[in-house]
């Protein structure tokens, strides 16, 4: 068997058998199961949480009953009860029977006004609901005073028809865009973590081989370039294995929850109508991003001589990934901004930002092809330079000051 395959299969098999890999995979899968069942779990915990609010009506207009109906219409988990005065209400609040109370008073100019009092006003949901119900009540009363017919009231309450239409033929509709945003958001995270995690794994792997000094035997039997790329491919396979497990777990549990999901926040994330091309692009860009950063990580890992220095050495690379991720996050709200278009062609940012554009907009194919070509060229160049650094780096021991050691490594691998 070719040496490339020996190194590749060794990297893959020895990594996949380690306890840390198995444990982290299992934990991650459990986390995915929990997350994908989140809406159910929240419901299970949220059940007995019917909130009660007391209402003190001081208007002499007998507003309590119509208000009760209005509240019911706004939020059925919120119930109200009538009390006589604030003293009684405060007693109930202190006894934890109610979350707060609403005081409805007469107001000469406005008809009536409401004041909501509670121990904690951090839960704005309750006060918002109360306000909404009160507003509805007020318009109802006003309408009655004006002697409007039911039809007139309905007309008054109906918002005007409003549509957004993109002029570009293939542009995504607002609804599509919201769905795509959810999917892109999740996949961006996956790319970000994937690239960062597996590239770091490469750097650690190389540095471990170097610090344990097994490297010198290895490079006397396998060319460094073969070794480096076999390792990168081995970890790539490992990452695919892990991803398939994760997605498999996620897919199965989501499929089971499909019914409960339709109404939940998952539809907002665009899972209901998963866009196949977006996922394919995600895989392409994740892999390209991985190869780009893994090559970089392998050379960086090869110049350190102590395992503790790895993190420090790869921190500039980590920064690049983080910057790309942050730009992509900003760009989610406005994917057609010119800075997004510009950065999507910078190879180190392409995997995340071009993916963002592809996922959110209709990007002309030549732009995608160009960015991928740029990335491939960069990977190729990094591969050539990286192999040189790697070749010299693995023979070099001593302090690892990034730039200087890279220079030394290049010098060491020079032909003459």
């Amino acid at each position: 068997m070719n040496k490339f395959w020996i190194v590749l299969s060794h990297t893959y098999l020895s990594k996949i058998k380690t306890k840390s890999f198995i444990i982290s995979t299992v934990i991650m899968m459990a986390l995915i199961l929990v997350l994908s069942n989140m809406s159910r779990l929240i419901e299970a915990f949220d059940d007995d949480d019917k909130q009660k609010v007391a209402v003190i009506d001081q208007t002499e207009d007998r507003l309590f009953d119509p208000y009760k109906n209005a509240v019911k219409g706004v939020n059925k988990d919120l119930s109200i009860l009538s009390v006589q005065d604030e003293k009684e209400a405060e007693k109930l609040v202190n006894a934890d029977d109610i979350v707060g109370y609403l005081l409805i008073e007469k107001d000469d100019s406005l008809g009536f006004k409401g004041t909501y009092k509670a121990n904690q006003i951090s839960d704005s949901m309750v006060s918002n609901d109360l306000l909404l119900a009160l507003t509805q009540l007020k318009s109802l009363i006003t309408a009655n005073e004006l002697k409007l017919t039911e039809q007139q009231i309905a007309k008054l309450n109906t918002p005007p028809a409003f549509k957004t239409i993109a002029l570009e033929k293939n542009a995504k509709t607002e609804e599509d865009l919201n769905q795509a945003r959810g999917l892109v958001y999740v996949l961006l995270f996956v790319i970000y973590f994937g690239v960062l995690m597996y590239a770091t794994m490469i750097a650690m792997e190389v540095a471990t081989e170097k610090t344990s000094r097994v490297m010198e035997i290895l490079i006397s039997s396998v060319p460094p370039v073969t070794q480096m790329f076999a390792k990168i491919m081995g970890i790539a396979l490992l990452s695919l294995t892990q991803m398939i497990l994760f997605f498999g777990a996620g897919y199965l549990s989501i499929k089971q929850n499909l019914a409960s999901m339709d109404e939940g926040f998952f539809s907002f994330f665009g899972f209901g109508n998963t866009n196949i091309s977006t996922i394919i692009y995600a895989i392409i860009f994740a892999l390209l991003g991985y190869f780009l950063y893994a090559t970089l990580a392998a050379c960086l890992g090869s110049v350190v001589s102590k395992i503790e220095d790895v993190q420090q050495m790869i921190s500039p690379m980590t920064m690049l990934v983080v910057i790309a991720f942050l730009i992509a996050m900003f760009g989610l709200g406005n994917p057609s901004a010119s800075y997004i278009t510009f950065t999507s062609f910078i190879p180190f940012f392409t995997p995340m930002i071009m993916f963002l554009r592809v996922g959110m907009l209709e990007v002309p194919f030549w732009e995608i092809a160009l960015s991928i070509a740029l990335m491939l060229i960069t990977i190729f160049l990094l591969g050539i330079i990286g192999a040189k650094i790697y070749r010299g780096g693995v023979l070099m021991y001593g302090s690892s000051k990034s730039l200087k050691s890279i220079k030394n490594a290049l010098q060491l691998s020079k032909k003459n």
Partner: protein
Amino acid sequence: MSLQINEVTKKFGEFTAVNQLDLTIPEKEMFGFLGGNGAGKTTTFRMILGLLDPTKGEVTWNGTKIDYTTSSVIGYLPEERGLYPKLKVRDQIVYLARLRGMNKRDALKELEYWLDRFKVPEYIDKRVEELSKGNQQKIQLIASMIHKPELLILDEPFSGLDPVNVEILKKAVIDLRDNGTTIVFSSHRMEHVEEMCEHLCIMHKGSPVVAGKLKEIKRSFGKKNVSIKADFDLSFLDTYAGVTKVKNTMEGKVLQVTGEDVAENMIRDLVPKGFVRKFELEEPSLTDIFIEKVGAVYE
């Protein structure tokens, strides 16, 4: 079949690590490489293995340059010991052996043979980090010679081992030579080189100061040692004509003399003075030669 090192020079920037090294290492022999720290031994080995390219000159094995196509006939034990700490001995050796062109089954068979021979068969399923340093070294030596290389390079193979293990490993290396492997071997331990190598080379600051057959090196060195024990005061010998070095021992002296004639004169002068318990003329040891040659360069 021999290893040719032709006028090889290696520079790192301004620093010359190896300077004009010119050696022929005969096949099926053990060749000793001596030198202090930083003498250029490891750099020379790395050039032999093709890990570093010489600035000038070339290294050939059987007339061809050593590169990755020949790696299945080359074995290497680096000075800095290194194995995967977390891997089991079995996985480790099989992996390294496959990289040297062996198949899995042969590698396992050979590994079992060597572990038995080194009296540690139970280590096959242990992780390397669980083994003592000396035992790790055994595993490392197995890794370097499991594929029966034609050329084996051992950088300090016996350092850090107890005498029993040194003997076991030495025996294994000698057997390998008898089976036709050419071995290049570096050491700080002169007695190992003296015992095992027919040819040797002493490096100092990148240049060979002595090279050739051990016997000839000793003969051409000229100086000999005289070891004396006597019942009377020997201090007059410190300034005796022809004595170049004096070492006092518990019961007498060891003197370095310029030749046999000095020893002859000496014994004639000693006998009238009283009872001489011991008077022995010895060949110079490699240590003497090493100190003399390398020390001379220092001065």
